[in-house]
C-alpha cells in the first residue's frame, strides 16, 4: 500500500511538471505581448525595456522557465499582467470562494438528487420513475451545461423572476449557478448508482436477506444501498472534470466572480500569467482529486488492491 501511494505521488509530480512545462512554452509562443499592444508600441523604447525588465521578459526563455519553476516551488505564481500590481496568487485566491461554494453546492445537490433518483429507479425497476430517471440521465449528459444555464437564466431568472438573474451578493445568487452546474453530476450519479444497484439486487445475499425475513426497507438500506454506494467513489474523477469544465461557462453566464469566469476573462485579455497560474491550479486540483479517489477506493475495496499488486 505504501509503495502504491508513493508511486502515485511520484506520478503526480511528473504529470504536474509536464503540464507546467507545456503551459510555459505554449504561452511563450502566444502572438503579441501581454501588454496593451497599442499603448505598448507607443511607449518610448526605454520605457518598453523597463516594462519588459520588470516582468523578467527580457531574459532568455530558458532562464525565464527556470525562474518560473523556482518561484512556483515557493508558491509564487508571478504577477498578473492585467490586474496591475496584483500577484496571480492573490487574484486567484481573491476569487476562489464563489467557485468553491457553487462547486460544493452542485456536488451535494447532485449527490442528493442523483442518488435518490437512481436508488428508487433501480428498486422500482421498469416503473415510471425508472424511465424518468433514465431520460434524465441521458439528457443530463447530452444537454451542454451552458445551454442549461442559459435556459435557467432566461426562464427562472428573467421570465418568472424567482431568483436573481446574475451577479453575486446574497446566497440566492448562488442558487441558479449551482443548479445549472449540478445537472450533469446529477445525471452521472443517478445513472451510475442505478446500474450498480440493479447488479447488487440480483446477488444471492439479497435473497438471503429477504429469506431471513428482513422487511423491504431493511433489505434496501442495509444491504442493497450500502453495497452499491461504494463504487460511486470511482466516478468522482469524471464528476470533477464535469464541474471544472462546467464552471467556466456557467460562471461566465451568471457573472459569478469565481475562478471559472476569471479563466475565461484572462483568455480574452491575453493575461498569460493568470492563465498559467489557473492552468496549474486546475491541473493540480484535478490530479490530486483523482489520486485521492484511487487511493480511497483501494482502501475501501480490497479487491482493487489485490488486482493492482498482480499487475506489478
Amino acid at each position, binding site marked *: 500500500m505504501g509503495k502504491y501511494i508513493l508511486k502515485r505521488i511520484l506520478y503526480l509530480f511528473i504529470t504536474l511538471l509536464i503540464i507546467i512545462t507545456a503551459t510555459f512554452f505554449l504561452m511563450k*509562443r502566444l502572438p503579441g505581448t501581454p501588454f496593451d499592444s497599442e499603448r505598448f508600441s507607443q511607449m518610448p523604447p526605454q520605457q518598453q525595456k523597463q516594462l519588459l525588465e520588470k516582468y523578467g521578459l527580457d531574459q532568455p526563455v530558458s532562464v525565464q522557465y527556470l525562474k518560473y519553476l523556482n518561484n512556483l516551488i515557493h508558491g509564487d505564481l508571478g504577477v498578473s499582467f492585467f490586474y496591475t500590481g496584483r500577484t496571480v496568487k492573490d487574484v486567484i485566491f481573491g476569487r476562489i470562494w464563489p467557485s468553491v461554494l457553487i462547486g460544493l453546492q452542485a456536488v451535494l445537490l447532485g449527490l442528493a438528487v442523483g442518488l435518490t433518483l437512481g436508488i428508487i429507479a433501480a428498486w422500482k425497476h421498469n416503473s415510471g420513475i425508472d424511465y424518468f430517471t433514465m431520460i434524465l440521465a441521458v*439528457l443530463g449528459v447530452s444537454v*451542454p451545461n451552458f445551454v442549461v444555464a442559459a435556459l435557467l437564466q432566461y426562464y427562472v431568472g428573467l421570465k418568472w423572476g424567482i431568483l436573481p438573474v446574475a451577479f453575486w451578493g446574497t446566497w440566492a445568487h448562488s442558487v441558479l449557478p449551482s443548479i445549472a452546474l449540478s445537472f450533469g453530476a446529477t445525471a452521472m450519479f443517478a445513472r451510475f448508482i442505478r446500474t450498480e444497484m440493479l447488479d447488487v439486487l440480483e446477488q444471492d445475499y439479497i435473497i438471503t436477506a429477504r429469506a431471513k425475513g428482513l422487511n423491504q426497507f431493511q433489505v434496501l438500506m442495509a444491504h442493497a444501498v450500502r453495497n452499491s454506494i461504494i463504487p460511486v467513489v470511482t466516478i468522482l474523477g469524471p464528476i470533477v472534470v464535469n464541474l471544472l469544465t462546467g464552471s467556466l461557462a456557467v460562471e461566465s453566464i451568471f457573472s459569478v466572480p469565481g475562478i471559472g469566469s476569471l479563466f475565461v476573462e484572462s483568455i480574452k485579455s491575453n493575461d498569460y500569467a493568470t492563465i498559467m497560474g489557473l492552468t496549474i491550479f486546475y491541473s493540480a486540483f484535478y490530479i490530486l482529486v483523482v489520486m485521492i479517489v484511487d487511493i480511497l477506493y483501494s482502501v475501501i475495496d480490497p479487491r482493487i488492491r489485490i488486482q493492482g499488486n498482480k499487475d506489478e
Partner: protein
Amino acid sequence: MENYRDLPLELFEKAEVNLDEKEHIAKPSLTAFQDGWIRLKKNKAAVVSLFILILIFLFAVFGPIFSSYDYAKTDYHHTFQLPSREHIFGTDQFGRDQFARIWYGTRISLLIAFAAACLDIFVGVTYGAVSALAGGKVDAVMQRIIEILVGIPSLIIIILLMMVMPAGIGTIIIAMSITGWVNMARLVRAQILKLKSQEFVLAARILGTNSRKIILKHLIPNTMGVIVINTMFTIPSAIFTEAFLSFIGIGLSEPRASLGVLINNGYQVLHNFPHLLIYPAIVIVLIMVCFSILGDGLRDALDPRMRK
C-alpha cells in the same frame, strides 16, 4: 403416470446416429457484425436514434444546398425575423437565414467530430496495438507515458492549444486529438492483451498461422467492437467540446458557423429572441442524445459479456 419399465420392449426403436448430421450447422454462420446488427435491430430506442442521426446527417449534407439562402449572406432589412414561411427558423441579427446556418453549422460540427474521431482511432489503435503486441519493456514504457497523459485535464490543454495555434477547424481537430486518443489506446491494448491469451489464438498458432495473419484475421476483427463502441462516445464528446470552445469564445469565429457558434450567438440575444438559441440547442441535444442511446445499444449488441 406409467412406469416406462412396464412398456414392452418392441415399442422401442433404436435411433439412427448419422455422423454427418451431428456436425451439421443448421443456421447460416454470421460474422460478429451481422450478429450484432440482428441484436441491435431489436433495440427500438437505438434504431430510432440511428434513424434520427441519419436524418440529421442528410440535412447537414444537403440542407444548405436546398435552402435558397446562403449561410453567410446578410440582409439588413430582415433582421431578427421570427420563424415564418420565408425563413423556417427565422433570421439572426444580421438577417442571415437561420435554417441555412443551422444545417451548415451542424455540418461543421459533425465534420470536426468525425475528423477528431478518425484521428483518435488511428493514433489510439496503433498505439494500443503496438503496446499490447510488443509487450515487455516497450509496453511498460508506453504504459507509463499513458498513465501520465491520463492525469492531464484535457480541456485545459485544449484551451491552451487553441490560444496558441491559428483559429480554424484544423486547430480544433488537432487540439482535441492530442489528448483524445489515450482512452482508445487503453481499451485496444486491454482487448488485445485479453485476446492474445485466449485459446483460439493459441489454436491458430499451433496450426501454424503466422503472426501477421493472426493480427489481421483474429485480433483486429475481435477488437472492432471495442473501437466502434468507443467511437460512439468520442463523437458526441467532440461535438460538445467544439460547442463549448466556441461558446466561451475561442473556437470558430464569425461568419463561419458551428453549433457552438450559433448557440453563443443565440445566447447574446436570448432576452428578446429565444428561438435563435433554442433551435441550434435542440439540434445539438438531439445529436448527443441519439449518439448516447445508439452507443449504449451498440455496446449491448456487440459486447458478448452483455449477452443474456
